[in-house]
């Protein structure tokens, strides 16, 4: 029992060490020569207003460039609500019957 808990602590510390090493190796925040700033984000920043006529670039990406993504996101929301209603709803007919 005691040894098992020590083993769990050791594994947790090892995982934390690995994660912290990975964080230390990340490129610094907000630098212009980071690998995230490639041609994709360059194209979005330069041509979003011309392509969509929208000033807020997040809305331009969510509702125009990646519109399929948002569409299936709303379908996922619909399915989740449907599951909750089917599971928890007690209908009027069933209530009066009992």
């Amino acid at each position, binding site marked *: 029992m005691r040894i098992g808990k020590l083993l769990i602590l050791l594994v947790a510390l090892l995982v934390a060490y690995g994660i912290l090493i990975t964080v*230390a190796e990340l490129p*610094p925040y*907000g630098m212009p020569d980071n690998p995230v700033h490639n041609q994709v984000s360059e194209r979005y920043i330069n041509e979003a207003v011309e392509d969509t006529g929208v000033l807020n670039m997040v809305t331009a990406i969510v509702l125009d460039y990646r519109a399929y993504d948002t569409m299936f996101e709303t379908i996922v929301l619909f399915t989740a609500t449907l599951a909750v209603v089917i599971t928890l709803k007690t209908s009027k007919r069933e209530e009066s019957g009992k």
Partner: protein
Amino acid sequence: MHFVAVDYWIMILLFILVVASLAMYFIKDLVHAVIVYGAYSLTMALIWLQMNTPDLAITEAAAGICMTVLMMVVIFRTSRREE
């Protein structure tokens, strides 16, 4: 490897974030844990605001409050406060 001068506000906010998420694990009363979750999501919204993403800040604040209310409703409906 070189470091950027990190804003000290983000350091303080991240510390509050770690403390709040540890407190959510250790608190026994579920209603108190939900209130601490509200503080967690407010801190997260402030961090997003510090990192210049107001979109995520608004969404985080609204969704955090919404989740707090819904979890409180579930706790009071099932009438099981202590875990």
